[in-house]
């Protein structure tokens, strides 16, 4: 393979310094993820999954080691550059949906686009994305708290896609959903992956992880096992 990985970790260590001691949340992790992969990060609570996702999502930087996102060495970037990287290259889908309460559904999807273009959308792209995730035009003026969790997560997926990101990161995307809507959301992610999107997803749920082509098992901040899944 001559292709460059979109995510590359070289001996990444993340240490949290606490008043009395320190926690090694990631211990010397090396990992490469290529375009079009669907990766599930698994492991017990406290094993370092969220920490890994936060590093990849440029919300935090490693204590040591190298992390490249789409070829950019994040250790060389300042806060504004990291912020712009999140805006342009990363689509984040959270367990809590995390829509912006003051904005309606359409504006929630439009928001990252405004950040990028510095102007309001006139192309109708946010509406198109909302339709694609199954929210017709009838609800788009509603506020997030007026719709169900499953619907909120669809809006969150539309928002994650609006800036055409290189990587989609999901932290327990079905953790707050019932099993029926979980399946709908996972099918949607699978479709996105089939269209060529790179997805990295943290989950402790085996059924959710089964949608991924590659599963990485974490324990105590280290990769202890990797599986490739062909039947998905």
């Amino acid at each position, binding site marked *: 393979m001559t292709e460059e990985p979109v995510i590359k970790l070289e001996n990444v260590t993340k240490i949290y310094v606490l008043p009395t001691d320190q926690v090694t949340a990631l211990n010397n992790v090396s990992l490469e993820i290529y375009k079009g992969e669907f990766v599930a990060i698994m492991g017990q609570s406290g094993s370092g999954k969220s920490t890994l996702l*936060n590093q990849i999502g440029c*919300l935090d930087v490693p204590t040591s080691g190298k992390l490249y996102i789409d070829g950019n060495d994040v250790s060389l970037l300042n806060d*504004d550059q990291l*912020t712009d990287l999140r805006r342009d290259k990363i689509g984040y889908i*959270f367990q809590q949906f995390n829509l*912006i*309460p003051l904005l309606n559904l359409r504006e929630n999807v439009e*928001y990252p686009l405004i950040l990028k273009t510095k102007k*309001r959308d006139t192309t109708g792209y946010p509406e198109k994305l909302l339709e694609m995730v199954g929210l017709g035009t009838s609800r788009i003026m509603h506020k997030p708290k007026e719709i169900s969790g499953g619907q909120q997560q669809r809006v969150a997926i539309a928002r994650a896609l609006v800036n055409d990101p290189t990587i989609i990161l999901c932290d327990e995307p079905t953790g707050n959903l019932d099993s029926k809507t979980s399946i709908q959301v996972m099918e949607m992610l699978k479709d996105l992956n089939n269209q060529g999107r790179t997805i990295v997803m943290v989950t402790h749920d085996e059924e959710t992880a089964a949608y991924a082509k590659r599963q990485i098992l974490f324990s105590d901040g280290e990769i202890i096992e990797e599986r490739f899944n062909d039947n998905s």
Partner: protein
Amino acid sequence: MIILDDIFFELSVRNVRLHFLRSLLAAIGIVIGVVAITSIGILGANMTQSVTADLSANGNVIMLSPQGGGFFSDDDDYISQKQLAKIEKTVGTENLVIAIYSDSDKITVGSEEGRASIYALDMDVLKNLVEVETGDYPTSLTSVVVGPSLAERYKLKVGSRIKIGDKDKEDPKQTTVRVSGILKERGMSMDLSSDNAIITMEKWFTNRYGDEGKYDQVNIVVADINAIDDLVDKLDHALNYRKDEVRIMDSGSLIESISATIGIIIAFMSAIGAISLLVAAVSIFNVMLMSVTERIKEIGILRSIGTRRSEIRRMFLYESAILGIIGSTLGAVFSLIGSFLLTYLMLNTTEYFFTMQSLIQIPYGILIGIVICVISGVYPAWKASNMDPIEALRAD
């Protein structure tokens, strides 16, 4: 409008609207502060202008008074006949010289008692200065003219009698005079403040109080206002050549010093207004910190999906500016009404209310109110923008 189109401005507006009551309460402080400083500023501007107008109608007067007169001073506390002669020689005949004896004494009209200023001056000079409204100038030793304000207060008419002095005292004894005329109203005047005084003949005055030829005050009404400075210099040379004996003041410099005094009073009152603005700043600061604290999670979301620190900062500064605009605008409206009433009550005139100096205070007040709100929002905005996105996301 680039700001109105800004998504962060939109978010701020919506947050203010969401917490409308709280925002309004916080803005009340600013309303009060802006009303305080603006009203005081407007009142001050009106005061300065009306006093200046009153005084500059009297801008052509030179006032001379004895330099001494202090309790421990052995300088003369009067202007002598000799000095008066020098003064008359210096100013020439084209300018009116008013030599005044003055004192104040107890007066009794019917059953009413009080005190009044008693002036005496040459009747020919008096005729030059003030007209009588009713009656006539005094012709006999025991007749007097009175100012209109005094006449009104004691219900004096032509022919009324005034007892001057204390009935229990021997020297000088109480004596009765008759009102022969009531003078025209003169308002504020520098040459002779006659509205509230009793004016007698010189002879009557020196008979009663002694000190003939020892004047308390000499005023000069200058014919050509441009000659004032020159005359002041000449008088100073003639009278104070060897020793400072006579204090010489022209009404122009008096106007300046009165204006300066008004300025100090206004500054002092503005300082009180400023304290109310400080209190307002604290309440804005408080509400902004509250706003930041309850939106930590939202800040985490905004940051994690690509909002820069500076944009978060902007969002909160807009919010405090909106509070400032609401508060200051309300304050401006109230202070327009309030200061109009205040000016009318305190100065009896709103003649100078709609002037530049007066109304400019309103945009100043608005600007100060907004600036104070924005400054109060700086720390909360900075705090919001410097939050760690991961920590913030974890909040609930």
